[in-house]
């Protein structure tokens, strides 16, 4: 039964996409090297497939040689590609945890927050997933790391030596 699993190199996430109901890409994170042309093609294809799904349908798709796990939150679709033998439900919870993090950070997050502050969303994602694997499952510590860095932003004017001190702290 595991023979199909054993030959795979790793089981990490391949990519994560956020796009709107209108088919506009809001965030894309690729965890395996993919050519730009292929990325565009995959994004386009996948958006089409996912947007065509009806609300009551299941959140998993087999697409190419990947498993797609997606969920819609308000006007945004969160969509992850994982290896075919991965656990779909836990991937769904990865998405949910990310949404929770965004929600906590932005305070009741909406699509606009992500549009205008997509770099922040990327920072949160990077703090949560590293190289496609869950890095930190504790909500508090992810946000602490982000806020620490944000704190620096507000004191951006201060001289560098102070920054270094803060980093040491």
């Amino acid at each position: 039964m595991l023979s199909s699993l054993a030959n795979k190199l790793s089981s990490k996430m391949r990519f994560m996409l956020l796009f709107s109901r209108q088919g506009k890409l809001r965030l894309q994170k690729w965890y395996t090297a993919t050519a730009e042309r292929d990325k565009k093609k995959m994004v386009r294809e996948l958006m089409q497939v996912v947007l065509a799904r009806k609300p009551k349908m299941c959140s998993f798709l087999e697409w190419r040689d990947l498993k797609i796990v997606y969920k819609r939150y308000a006007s945004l679709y969160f969509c992850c590609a994982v290896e075919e033998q991965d656990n779909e439900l836990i991937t769904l919870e990865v998405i949910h945890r990310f949404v929770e993090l965004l929600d906590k950070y932005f305070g009741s997050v909406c699509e606009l927050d992500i549009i205008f502050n997509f770099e922040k969303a990327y920072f949160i994602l990077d703090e949560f997933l590293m190289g496609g694997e869950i890095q930190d499952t504790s909500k508090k510590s992810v946000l602490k790391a982000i806020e620490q860095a944000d704190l620096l932003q507000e004191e951006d004017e201060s001289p560098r030596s102070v920054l270094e001190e803060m980093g040491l702290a």
Partner: protein
Amino acid sequence: MSDVVEKTLSALPSLLSLDSQAGAGKLSPSSKLGNLIKGITELTSKHEEERLIKKELESIKEQVASPNTTMRQMKEIMVRAIYCEMLGYQASFSYIHAIKLAQQGSVLEKRVGYLAVSLFLNETDEFLLLLVNTVLKDLQSTNLIEVCMALTVVSQMFPKDMIPAILPVVEEKLTHPKEIIRRKAVLALYKFYLIAPNQVQHIHSKFRKALCDKDPGVMTASLHIYLQLIKENPESYKDLTGSMVTILRQVVGGKLPLDFNYHSVPAPWLQIQLLRILAYLGKEDQGTSEMMYDVLEESLRRAEMNHNITYAILFECVKTIYTVHPKSQLLEKAAECIGNFVLSPKINLKYLGLKALTYVVQQDANLALPHQMTIIECLDHSDVIIKRETLELLFRITNAQNVTVIVEKMLEFLRLTYNVWFIQTMNSVFSLGGDVMQPDIPNNFLRLLAEGVDNVEDRQLRLFAVDSYVSLLQGETAKLPQRFLQVISWVLGEYSYLREEESDPGSVMRLLARLLDQRHTSTETRSWVLGAMTKLCSSPVYSGSLNTVLRQKAQELMILSQDTKLRARVLPAEDSSLSFLDGYVSEALAAGAAPYKSPHQRQEDLVQEKALSLEPYGLSLPVSLSSCSITDRRSPTLLSMSSGLSGNSTELSHQEGSTTLKLEGVKRVWGKDGYLAQQQSAGETPTPLVELPSPLLSPQSPPSQTQKPSSGLEPDQEKRQLASSLFVGLGSHNSVCLVRFPSTVWLFIKHCQSANQSNVVKALFKPLPLLLPVPLTVSTGDYGKMWLSFSHDLKQNLQLVTTEHQEPLTATLDALKGKLHLHVVDIIGSEGIVACRLLQGPGQGQPCLLHCRVHADSLAVWLRSPVPELPDSLLYHCQKALTET
């Protein structure tokens, strides 16, 4: 989040003007990015967007090139460049500036620089080399945030060859006082391990230290590495079983800080990771498995809350229980758990339940039995994904008795989903599978074409089939298998009328005539062709054709076919052995009719049965046919025979129960010549071959419309019948006998999901992708002996893998070994010998040997195997593996 008020883009412009809106401080609509986004949302066409972005990119280009641009401005510019790229516009001129920002900016500017780099570049990009020194510097920084950023970018992408340059520094971080740094360092090393395992081999002992880290986060991170290591080589890590079990027990028992809880479930990600590791450790190892039974049971018991996350754990737990050495008590509980999944009204859980069942029925097909009705319901589910998963499940329980129904269900699925693709695929199946194919397959195919209401979609499918066959027949037909030609004839006879408007009416007839004339066309096929021609000539297209010869032939044929006496006079049959019926007879046999029995034999049978059967039709049907008759009384071959050749409304009279009447008719025409038995059992009327009453001849009435076999049944009862035919043979024996064709169809279904259509068709002509080689450990001597005894070989040049540290030959063989699990028997000078064995697919269990020799810049590979397909398919996989390297 669920209660978030939905704010759509349409509301955007008005929102932007309100500064007091929540989060407005973060929105910064007055910034340049804000203006850009606002500008884009106000546009109405793609064309306008292109123009705006083009202008934006030009302005960005100008700014980044200006020497007066500060790093702070650069940071803002970079965010805009990222945005443009996300919209699909290339800003490649900014890549180098992203690197510069990461190199020279302050911490925050650096953060954006690194982000832009990780979004713009790939690990193969040469630009990344420029970043190595910066990363090294940041890793050594005293600022924690800089160290974190460097570790993040390293785990996202780093040039493989440059790993040695930073490895010592990353390694050092494993002992860093801050857990966040240790954790990130572990994940970075995990990434290195994935892309260059040899580089991190020397620090395995440090991984153990990370596993014992007092911070659960660091420990969790180290499990990624261990999962990988154990997956590759479980034997070396059996000693960890105890520790893993202990950790899992503690986690399940809620011993971790509450911080690690997710929706009140303790560290679910960690639990799942541990369960996966235990699966690898306990697989085929009773001793090790026994150590984990208790904790597995506890995991099952504890995960009882009704939340997705507990189901995720349960699913993993069930998988582990079914992977490790079996313990019946645990298996029972796991099976019960699967039942809960399958029966769940939540569609996601149902899907996983089907998936879990698909796993476990491979060990015990009986596990599907309690869920028969659910499975039948899922087969008709409106979500195609559920349907597909159900088919996979059915595919796994295919045995000789239910193969017909299951293949039929698969084909139905294909037809519904992929019309054009389906025809093309079936063309390939017929061309390749040809005459060795089980008769069920063409039968089911024809049935699918014929079935259904006569709507636009069905008509399109048929028309497409007709068109594709016409173009096939216009080419070289000598190589087409007879069975395929028969299918073609039937379809052309039945549905050529669909293309009447667009082409010369005689063309199909001429193509069929050409088939008749060809020497390689078998008698059986000829009878199909004739049937098709007969149907065609009755069509007004031909009888009213302007082509006088054609019209005359058509009319003659029609009249002759209606007037037996005339026909007998014009074309007297002098064939006393009735050999002209041979094709017809074998046709009927293929369709499931009982073989001919001599009167003597029949007498014996009668004596045995002691009674005359009043229903010879049903009784003489073989098993496969009766099982498929649950949904439809006849196989399409029979359909085609009755409509195409005899055309009498057997089915109607059959349903009226006028058995006796027909028997009399038979006797009158054929007497006791013995053909009677076959005629009957095939459900045929005994009328002469070419006597063709016109109503059924008309192609406009697909045969299926004349009958509604299951009309009298309640829907539920119908399902029960379907269930009984699907699950037949499951209870009786445990070994699942996989019939080859379902796997072919299944592969197609898999394919059409995973690739686009043209790829699928291409893939059909490639070796099966199911190839799963395992190393074959043989000595050089044995290799030599085997080599000489194998008859099928293949030679081909492959590209060499070049690395700095290894000989090209070694590097290439290593790559093959790693990707395809081949066993490198020996390397002598510029030659290497390799052996493997196949786990699945056509050559199951059979060896394949490779002889590799470096020749100039390429690797001359010579493959040998006792199975003809193996060398070809292994070669394909080698090529693939090497191009990916």
